[in-house]
């Protein structure tokens, strides 16, 4: 008989992690472990494949449909692989007014991607997202879990260049109330000048 190669279950070699997550919830609320399990898989693999969905369903005694239902409710979970750098442009009102559309256009032109796509190399994914909750520093670009605030064209160029070298630069923090739209924060004491 030919033995087919099957993917190893994700949690097969992580019994402690699995037990730790399941242990957070009482027995009757076992299904609550769904979100943390999805998150573990996504953190490691950058998306949750159908095989992983089935595996999680099996662990929690749910159907794959239910897992997919929960997963699809949250836009943070991905059903398709995303690039190593997941560029998420806030497209809600404050950022729109501060130029998020132009920012998206510029990223589209530079990367040759439309929102929702990943490049062939698997480096960049571009996505428009809803409010990132940082309206005071609009427009905001979130790369993986890092916020880049008040990003202008020059910032984007610098950021993309760094990421092409596989460096994720420290974000430049901008103080609230600073009306200078682009560029690094003004040195302390100069703002009143």
């Amino acid at each position, binding site marked *: 008989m030919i033995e087919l190669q099957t993917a190893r279950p994700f949690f097969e070699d992580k019994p402690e992690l699995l037990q730790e997550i399941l242990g957070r919830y009482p027995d009757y609320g076992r299904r609550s472990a769904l979100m943390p399990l999805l998150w573990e898989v996504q953190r490691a693999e950058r998306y949750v494949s159908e095989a992983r969905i089935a595996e999680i369903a099996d662990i929690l005694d749910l159907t794959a449909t239910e897992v*997919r239902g929960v997963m699809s*409710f949250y836009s943070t979970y991905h059903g398709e692989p995303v690039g190593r750098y997941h560029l998420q442009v806030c497209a809600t009102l404050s950022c729109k007014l501060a130029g998020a559309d132009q920012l998206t256009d510029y990223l589209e032109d530079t990367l040759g991607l439309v929102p929702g796509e990943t490049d062939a190399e698997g480096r960049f994914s571009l996505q428009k997202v809803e409010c990132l909750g940082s309206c005071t520093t609009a427009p905001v670009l979130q790369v993986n879990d890092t916020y880049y605030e008040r990003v202008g064209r020059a910032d984007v160029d610098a950021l993309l260049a760094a990421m092409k070298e596989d460096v994720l630069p420290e974000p430049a923090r901008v103080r609230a109330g600073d009306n200078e739209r682009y560029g690094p924060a003004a040195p302390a004491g100069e703002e009143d000048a």
Partner: protein
Amino acid sequence: MKIHVNDVPLDVAPGTSVIDAVFAAGYDVPYFCSQEYMSPIGACRMCLARVGAPRKDRATGEWILDEATGDAKIFWFPNPMATCTTQVMEGMVVDTLSKEVKRAQNGMVEFTLVNHPLDCPTCDKGGACELQDRAYEYGTGESRFVFDKRHQEKHHALSEAITLDRERCIHCKRCVRYFEEVPGDEVLDFIERGGHTYIGTLEDGLPSPFSGNITDICPVGALLDSTSRFRGRNWEYHHTDTTSLDDPSGAALRIDARTGRIERIKAGLNDEVNKTWIDDGTRFGHEYADHADRITLPMVRKDGRLEPVAWSEAMRVVRDKLGGVDGTKVGVAIRADATLEEGVAAQALAAHLGTGRLDHAPRPAASVLPGGAPATLRDVATSDGLLVLGDPTHEAAIVDLRIKDALKGVPPADLLPHGVPIADLRLTERMPRKTEILTVVAPYRTDLMKHAGRTVTPPAGGEGALLRALLALAHARTEAQGASDPGKAADAALAGWDDAVGMSAADAAALLDALAAAEAPVLIWGGFVSADPDADAAARALATAVGAKTLILGPMANAAGLERIGVLPSHERYAYDPASSEVRAWILGDLDPAQDPTVAKRFADLDALIVHAAFENATTALADVVLPAVTGYEKEGSTLNAEGRLLPVRAAPVEAGAATDFTGVVKAYGEAAGERLEGRSVRSARRVLKKRLDVDLAELPDDGRLLPPAPAAARGARALPARRAATGSALVVPSLVRIEHLDRNPTLLREHGGPTLRMHPSDAHAHGLTRGEVVTVPVGGIPRRLVVAPDDGVPEGTWLVPTLPDQPVGLHPLDLDALRRERGETAEVA
């Protein structure tokens, strides 16, 4: 609780929902998401009303009074309330007529229609659509939404039998909740969020035996039965409210027929039996009735070929043929889903011929009538200790759902003036299920086991040993209670336990404890127990020992009824045996014993073979006279379901030529023989039954009537002598899908796949069988064409084969050496 709905004062029970109070008062309120037997969730916001209530002064505890009138002052809730999720309060006032409520309703209709395609002229639901009706009644007829509507998939095959139009969906969540709350198979869910939400599944083809019910409860045309899609408009259908003859649960059906064809079957409402649910085998398994090769005329063999003739001529041939045979050597057998009226006809015919060789088939070795304390389906749904032996999902599907009702622990709601409560607030989404009250015993892994706190897998045919062991233990424990040292005696009782019966001593003791502790225990068993008279006797004794009521699931729809009225041989020696060499002539109703080559050989030298059948088969191929039979959808009559409820069977208008039921056969025979036989018509049979059962079957209400159990004396007179339990390595198992009709039911065949031969994967490997391969193998003499489906829920050494009317549930010999592979043929296996 005293409340006011508009101008109507009303006294309702505490816990009633406001929506039910409104309907009870005779007013109407629109709703989409509520459904009689599911949890109210307030999702659609359509049932809005203005609601107010008096308030008590916190300091004094007195009602705050309205200074102007001196009555309790009504404090209106700040917003319109969803009445389905609001409970009544003392003194509550509900307003469903004011301008404010009208405005709220107008707004909700407009909002619900924002993304609805309004394609009613091409929609199958048009004319019977809750959304359409409500939009006319409660909408303004105008929309301010001038933008593009949401576009989604219009013809999504959710399964082979159900088509989903995602644009029409209004996200009421009935279907999603249904799967979780009713059958407990969560195979459908909302995917995505907000305006992008749609219903979908990752499970291949909605793997639940009850999936079709979502097409009934969908308030719009989003979920449609594929067998009837685009086949007719609702106002063109002729509706027939009848009872399913598919299995012994007696589910209510509504058959929709048009121009002599059955277009679809929907569930009927019978609060005591099926509520509003039916299984997929019943719902989608009707296409065979309209199949082109129905026998529509009587046929007589002339020069070796069957020639169509008139009934009168066919019956002259029957009369002449039977005239030459010794009456005692004629056998009469009808299928166990014949109506009671047909049973009376068969009895009259047998009496006229002077033969005691009368029987219904399949008939298990043991009686299917419960003894002392029969359980009704309501008893099942309210039980707190259930022991199930068999596979109710496949034997009587509704019983499966009523068992799941019991797990919720919510007894059936009392009826209100408008019927079943629309919003039963005791039901919630994802209720905890009391799985610990359910024990399932079956020789392989059954669907119901997923829901059982305790499962037992005895060896195939080992139910008798298990039940006897349990019975002995129950008796020993009772005796131990009277002993000087009860603890020690109880341990001694356990000491002799043999785990080989399928469960451990500790489990057995726990099971008996659970049954003893239960206030309303119920024992349910089906074909595996009835196939073995010893197992049956032990099951009855165990029920008595633990004080449980009993429900027995017979092999076919009316097995209990035909046994009850005595469509039985005068002596067990004369039981239906088509291979018997004593019988010189057979009159067979809907049976096909000649599938077995040995029987076919026997039949070749009969003096007369008269077959009443709807389709040509191996037996009609040998028959001297073939008489056209109607299907269960076209019969007028009555049936007795497993719980002992008499239910009306009504005829749908289906084009079937000169076909009749068995009363028609007897009528025509009587005319040819110059005799007026009892049971020559449904009416004449009912006169006989009225005398015997003291019930006028012509007057049966839609939801039937419970027939009191037969007096013990009457049963004793017809006591069935024990027949021997069979042996073999093929276990013929019950099937929700009628295998004998599957080839003529294309939708169901695609949905269900062909009949399967299930075995443990190691057995499949040992015989070099691969999944999906089509094989032919003799099972108990009948060559069966089956699709190989390895299944690790089947114990090693046992091969599962779905039942046929001519191959009853139980063990049969399996000739694996004669297994033949159908070269190159494979089939999908669910």
